[in-house]
């Protein structure tokens, strides 16, 4: 059977499964719509959280980032997993005990202020919408490459499926589709990784293969990779090239940001008990770690495979002739994500670092007749092209397409859930129309969901120019505003309404200001006040790494303002005492 048909069958089957779940998991009450009736088993919730969390970026982009950045990409590995420790120890059990439906609702109640709640809603919506755009791009890429459907049509099919289960089932429908999507995506990610690890290192586990020996050369894989990339003028794979302070803060910002992302926190509202929230965070990380510990192996092996393909006899010999390029090369050229430009006109693909700082290397490159790097590789294709580069069977390639779509759709659904519940529960029921009945609120929730999906689809079809910059924004917002407010709300009885609002705004503004200084006001190109270079960064801190500084500002301002203003009322102190103790979780709903 040809690849095209096979891909249609595999992707079609996965979509049929999601639609089936949509009809089975209808939500009848707001409790089911917002929190899946709080009846999700902790292991099942862990799986759903893993799918909710692992986005198109984790599935498609991360291994590519690791492949091209080597050690420096460790910030993503540690940052996006270390956040779960913070979530499990500092937030999830207490927010579950609080027993309400949304993150802004906790902030509004704990800081007895609808202003605080609205600030939280705005942060949540901006962070989630920017994040959704990235998922939409992932859906488009997967469709256009594998199904040879136009990216816009693919996007509409994808959002149509989400519409079916999210509008009908809310959190309940999303939870059970996410579980199915996790199974699809983890299978699709690990199977090619195992094949490649076996081929390159003889080790079935990529986690061990990465530190094993490269079969073809008999030397350790990472030593071989270090040597190979260095011969091409790149920095050694395992060497640190960024500044240490920046790496530390970048990691910390991603950790805090992860713990503060509302669509992830919300998942812990769906388990029956506080105890389950603690377990469930552990299970979530088990399922996430399956992919995250595989990714470094995938990245390193993909880099080596790519280099060996272009330089079949090593960089000292001739590069691959363009006419002899393999089929996967041709397939990806069509998408424009892989491009060849014959700068020296010899019909061969000289792929190397033409911006090397080594004079010696540059001289040698010129002497060899190289006239600049001739191959541009988009890092996003590394995972998607991997099975083809490693010459794996067609069904594996079809599976990767379904996996990429599962990763993008599951995260998009979680984000849309966070946005729509915030609109219907925090803005409408909580602030503007408190008289809504249960039935009316459920209808409002469904309408919000439908509108949110339509906006996401529209943004996917007309992506704003800043689409690539948004990850920094989403994590920056979550780290600098949401996480500190939640943590102080639980761990301090001294922070009052004014302190919390001032802290959130200060952290938020400082972070936005720093990002916009280097990336342009609202990401409009050319409006940045300083060039985005390490030399210009304050203490070498990149805009993406500033969230941790924003969080520190938030904490500091909140403490100072609270100290200078009125004390926290007695009933709020009781609320804090109450969420710290698991006992009475059932009753907390009617607080």
């Amino acid at each position, binding site marked *: 059977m040809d690849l095209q048909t096979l891909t249609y069958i595999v992707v079609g089957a996965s979509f049929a499964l999601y639609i089936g779940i949509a009809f089975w998991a209808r939500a009848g009450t707001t409790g089911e719509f917002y929190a899946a009736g709080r009846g999700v088993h902790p292991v099942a919730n862990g799986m759903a959280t893993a799918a909710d969390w692992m986005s198109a970026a984790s599935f498609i982009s991360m291994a590519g980032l690791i492949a091209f950045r080597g050690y420096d990409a460790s910030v993503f590995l540690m940052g996006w997993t270390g956040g779960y420790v913070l979530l499990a120890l500092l937030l999830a059990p207490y927010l579950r005990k609080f027993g309400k439906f949304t993150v802004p609702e906790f902030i509004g109640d704990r800081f007895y202020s609808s202003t605080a709640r609205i600030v939280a809603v705005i942060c949540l919506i901006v962070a989630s919408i920017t994040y959704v755009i990235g998922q939409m791009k992932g859906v488009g890429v997967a469709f256009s490459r594998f199904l040879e459907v136009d990216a816009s049509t693919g996007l509409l099919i994808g959002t149509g499926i989400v519409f079916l289960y999210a509008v009908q089932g809310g959190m309940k429908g999303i939870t059970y589709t996410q579980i199915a999507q996790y199974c699809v995506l983890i299978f699709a990610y690990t199977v090619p990784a195992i094949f490649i690890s076996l081929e390159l290192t003889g080790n079935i586990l990529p986690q061990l293969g990465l530190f094993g020996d490269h079969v073809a050369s008999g030397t350790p894989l990472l030593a071989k990779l270090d040597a190979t990339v260095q011969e091409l003028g790149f920095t050694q794979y395992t060497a640190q090239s960024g500044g240490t302070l920046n790496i530390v803060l970048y990691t910390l910002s991603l950790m805090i940001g992860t713990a503060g992302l509302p669509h992830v926190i919300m998942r812990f509202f769906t388990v029956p008990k506080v105890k389950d929230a603690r377990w469930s965070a552990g299970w979530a990380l088990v399922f996430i770690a399956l992919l995250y510990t595989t990714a*470094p192996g995938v990245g390193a092996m993909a880099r080596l495979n790519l280099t060996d393909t272009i330089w079949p006899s090593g960089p000292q010999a001739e590069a691959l002739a363009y006419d002899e390029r393999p089929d996967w090369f041709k397939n990806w050229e069509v998408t424009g994500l892989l491009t060849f430009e014959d700068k020296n006109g010899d019909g061969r693909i000289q792929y190397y670092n033409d911006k090397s700082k080594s004079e010696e290397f540059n001289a040698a490159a010129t002497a060899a007749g190289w006239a600049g790097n001739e191959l541009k590789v988009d890092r996003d294709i590394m995972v998607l092209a991997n099975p083809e580069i490693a010459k794996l069977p067609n069904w594996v390639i079809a599976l990767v397409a379904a996996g990429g779509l599962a990763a993008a759709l599951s995260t998009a659904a979680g984000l849309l859930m966070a946005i729509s519940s915030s609109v219907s529960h925090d803005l409408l029921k909580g602030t503007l129309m408190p008289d809504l009945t249960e039935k009316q609120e459920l209808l409002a929730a469904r309408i919000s969901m439908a509108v949110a999906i339509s906006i996401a689809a529209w943004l996917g079809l007309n992506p704003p120019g800043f689409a690539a910059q948004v990850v920094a924004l989403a994590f920056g917002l979550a780290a600098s505003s949401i996480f500190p407010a939640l943590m102080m709300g639980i761990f301090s009885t001294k922070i009052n309404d004014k302190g919390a609002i001032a802290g959130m705004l200060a952290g938020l503004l400082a972070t936005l200001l720093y990002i916009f200084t280097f990336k342009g006001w609202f990401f409009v190109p050319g409006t940045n006040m300083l060039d985005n270079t390490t030399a210009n960064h304050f203490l070498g801190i990149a805009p993406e790494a500033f969230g941790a500084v924003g969080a520190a500002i938030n904490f500091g301002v909140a403490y100072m303002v609270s100290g200078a203003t009125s004390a926290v009322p007695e009933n709020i102190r009781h609320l804090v005492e109450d969420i710290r103790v698991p006992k009475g979780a059932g009753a907390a709903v009617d607080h």
Partner: protein
Amino acid sequence: MGYAMSEKLGVDNAYWKANIRLITWCLVVWAFVSFGLGILFRPMLSGISVGGTDLGFWFAQQGSIYVFLALIFFYAIRMNALDKKFGAEED
């Protein structure tokens, strides 16, 4: 629900203090494996080789994730035990 248990389980009681102690130690380990072994102390540990590279690289791309996992389960087990000891369990 009432706040009758506040005296025993309210702010700054033994249950909460034990929890804070546990959290602090877990976070010390959390920071030590990631920021410590994976980043800051990596140059000092470069002599310890692990399959073609050094210990710091292993912690940055594998080890810290395994420790994070162990920490979350350890915390859950210890907290569930604390809940029992202090009678703070859910009904």
